[in-house]
């Protein structure tokens, strides 16, 4: 039996335990570029109100997967169902209910934080934008930064602002691409705390692409491991550790990346 086969069965069992339909269901999703296959027929589902980690080395297909979920990249084949609706067919109904944060996507530098958030609030149809900005400023400790230009912030401040933009519409599905990359441990820990609080309060579903294994272990109920465009493993962090006989996810990640332990784990 291949690792994939076993993982499919484990994941299937997990999915069947879901009390409600998934917040996100990806089926046979494939993206083939002229230069090669970025994502090769992956399927997974996220239970509402959970945090799922999307792990994989560079070029594993994580960003392309997230981009297809957001409708930024058109799949070659397969389907994406978000909150019971089809993406990209129902794109403009869904985009009100989801959001995305990545340190690699920036906001206009010359505009102040308040101006940026106001514009995005209007784009997302947020009612009483001023109150929402005040609330986010309090929650994310941005009050002193609101009238500062976005281009004049430190990395940590930029991450908090990006997070404020991602939470402006209180999304039901939040996609995060390395949200704590380039942050110092204290700020990263603070950001994780805010994300967990948001998940608990909103009962939001979060898909978290990250290279930080400690972050994934702390935040995620489930982990999807990708390599070369396919899902090579899927489970809870605890079960992955047991299956691979490792003490932390970083070691599991290395086993998967170096192809050591995958087959053994599957067997």
């Amino acid at each position, binding site marked *: 039996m291949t690792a994939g086969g076993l993982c499919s069965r484990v994941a299937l069992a997990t999915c069947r335990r879901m009390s409600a339909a998934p917040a996100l269901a*990806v089926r046979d999703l494939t993206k083939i570029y002229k230069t090669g296959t970025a994502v090769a027929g992956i399927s*997974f589902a996220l239970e509402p109100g959970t945090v799922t980690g999307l792990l994989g080395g560079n070029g594993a297909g994580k960003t392309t997967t997230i981009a297809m979920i957001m409708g930024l990249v058109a799949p070659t084949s397969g389907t994406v169902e978000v*909150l019971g609706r089809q993406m990209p067919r129902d794109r403009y109904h869904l985009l009100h209910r989801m959001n995305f944060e990545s340190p690699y996507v920036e*906001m206009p530098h010359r505009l102040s934080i308040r101006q940026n958030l106001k514009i995005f609030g209007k784009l997302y149809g947020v009612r009483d934008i001023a109150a929402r900005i005040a609330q986010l400023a309090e929650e994310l400790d941005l009050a002193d930064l609101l009238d500062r230009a976005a281009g004049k912030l430190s990395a940590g401040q930029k991450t908090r602002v990006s997070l404020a933009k991602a939470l402006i519409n209180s999304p039901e599905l939040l996609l995060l691409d390395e949200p704590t990359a380039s942050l110092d441990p204290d700020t990263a820990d603070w950001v994780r705390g805010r994300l967990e609080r948001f998940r608990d309060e909103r009962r939001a579903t979060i898909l978290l692409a990250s290279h930080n294994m400690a972050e994934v272990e702390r935040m995620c109920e489930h982990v999807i491991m990708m390599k070369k465009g*396919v899902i090579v493993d899927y489970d809870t962090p605890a079960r992955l550790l047991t299956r691979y006989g490792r003490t932390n996810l970083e070691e599991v990640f290395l086993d998967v990346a170096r192809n050591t332990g995958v087959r053994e784990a599957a067997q």
Partner: protein
Amino acid sequence: MSVPVQTQSRRVEPAIRFHPAFSWARVFAMVQRYWYLLRSSWPRVLDLIYWPTVQMCMWGFLQMYVGQQGGVVARAGQTFLGAVMLWDMLFRGQLGFSISFLEEMYSRNLSNLLISPLRPMEFVTSLMIMSVIRLAVGMVPVSILAILFFGFNLWALGFGLVAFFVNLMLTGWAVGIFVSGLLLRNGLGAENMAWSIMFLLLPLTCVYYPVSVLPGWLQTIAWSLPPTYVFEGMRALLLDHVFRADLMLQALAINMVLFMLAILAFLEFLKSSRRHGSLLAGGE
């Protein structure tokens, strides 16, 4: 490997708010974004006024000089200032559209917009409104300076000016929309097109000379371009004091077709960008 999905029990969706297919609130949010940007940078504002002023001065003095020569040359020279100001309307109309679009690519904000509920037609509409605002910031002071320095009153063209403006803006927008599509698909590698594409029209649309000057085969091409009708109409108005409504209507008809084609091209470029993943590159 894949992670199979069960979907038997449908989640009860929360009440979905009404999402109109076209929202003026989102359009004006984008206009507000560009307005904030313009307001935050005096060099940007200066840039809008600087070049039209230089052009107006140069052509104004040339018109004065040619006017002193008398004869046919003097007659031809009477239209220089009108021509350069209408040309600026065309050029700045397109550039105002394309630069606002480029600002999104420079600030790597395009992905944020494309994953927001902003629809392509709302985005395009906001860019059109912004091009009018940018044009007004640049051209209103210049038109006043033309009255003061050279006694040329663009506003005295009256209804003719409205017809010229509408047609030139429609052409400027059509070209701007097409170029923005190219930028979406090809990234900032196509940036030069935004700055230079309009100059292709400069000789073909007969800004400073009548269409009859061109060889026959080029005249056919010239008459397929709406600005040619505008510049011919301007000469008729300034030299013969006749408003050629027929030319304006023909220009409007061609503009409608060009505008629709530009919109279709933009949507196709957007679709193609999604297929090729070029939106992920952040505009580079």
